[in-house]
């Protein structure tokens, strides 16, 4: 009996599945030693790069595998929602993922932030500045941004040195509810042409 009833209404409940190309295309950048790829790009295997057992660790709190999973999922979603986000850094000579860098602007952030994370063994090779130059060039030339900030804790001397090396200028201390530290200063990155004729200020303004 139930089959006959179902047959009577089956025509109306047919389910139709179609695959559609959402048309998303995310940029990738190339430097001398690194490829910068968006982890939102369809071909990118985020699980293999970051989430499998033994994958390189570089994000704060990555000791908690659950937190890392959520970080990677949100980093990918950020690209879809904003059209930009953190690139995965891949060492060209080995194909190994060595970190992430890019503009980060979740709801609740005061402004887009250029943020970077490197694996332990990829530090000290100039990878961060090489990647940062590429990302800044992309933001200023392709995306037509006029500036972007980094929020750096006052005691993070390595990141401050990097910010200075790539021409960022220190501004005021910054605090916001979601800030990961309470002693952060805004460092502002500038398009290269604006730096011409003006000395880069390397001291603190306050």
């Amino acid at each position, binding site marked *: *009996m*139930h*089959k*006959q*009833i*179902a047959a*009577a*209404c*089956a025509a*109306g*409940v*047919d*389910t*139709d*599945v*179609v*695959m*559609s*190309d*959402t048309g998303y295309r995310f940029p990738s950048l190339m430097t001398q030693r690194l490829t910068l790829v968006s*982890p*939102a790009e*369809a*071909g*990118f*295997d*985020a*699980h293999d790069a970051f*989430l499998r057992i033994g994958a390189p660790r570089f994000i704060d709190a990555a000791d908690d*595998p*659950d*937190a*890392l*999973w*959520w970080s*990677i*999922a*949100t*980093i*990918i*979603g*950020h690209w*879809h*929602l904003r059209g930009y986000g953190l690139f995965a850094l891949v060492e060209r000579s080995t194909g190994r993922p060595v970190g992430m860098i890019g503009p980060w602007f*979740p*709801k*609740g952030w005061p402004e887009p932030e250029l943020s970077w994370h490197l694996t332990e063994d990829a530090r000290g090779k100039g990878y961060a500045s090489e990647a940062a130059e590429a990302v800044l060039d992309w933001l200023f030339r392709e995306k037509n941004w006029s500036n972007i900030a980094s929020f750096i804790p006052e005691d993070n001397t390595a990141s401050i040195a990097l910010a200075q090396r790539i021409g960022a200028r220190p501004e005021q201390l910054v605090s916001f509810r*979601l800030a990961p530290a309470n002693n952060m200063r805004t460092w502002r990155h500038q398009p290269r042409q604006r730096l011409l004729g003006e000395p880069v200020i390397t001291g603190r303004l306050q």
Partner: protein
Amino acid sequence: MPSSIPVIETKRLVLRGPETVDYPDFKATFSSYRARFMGGPLNPYEAWMLYAAEIGHWQVRGFGMWMIHDKITEETYGMAGGWMPAGWPEREIAWIIWPDAAGKGYALEATHAARNYYYNTLGWDGAVSYIDPKNLDSIRLAERLGAQKDHDADTIDGSDAVYRHPAPNALKDSQLIHGIEMEISHYADPLFKPEGWALD
């Protein structure tokens, strides 16, 4: 890794991947009391990050939650699909319906289509739904879908009940499936009264 998120059309609905334009609808519900059984209400940062994770989930897992749209008006009614973030013991069929759209059978229609897709297209051998024991509407829907409480299964954090969906073989051409499809037809056309429809 799906190069795109599948689009599923049902009688009244179209299920599509979550998009930027749909975010305000998502945020409205997840920052409201309605989200109390889904870890909410969330603040703006949490809601935005969860929405980003809904999208990232598709890439990391190869499946995820669809946004439920009205086929004609494009209006969104909620979300439904597969969900298995970090910490989930098993693949879940999950759903949330915006408060204004409740009681119209949209969750049934969407979860039925989603489960069919995961069983028939992706080859899942089963699924569960993790439900707050106080969430009676969701428990009712799980039972209409044929899911039964599994007292032995691992929970997410001990505060949720596990409802186990029938395996694909048990569903195929079953009375349950025909009943679900008849119920959906009835929602879509309240005048639909096939022979044998119980009138009491």
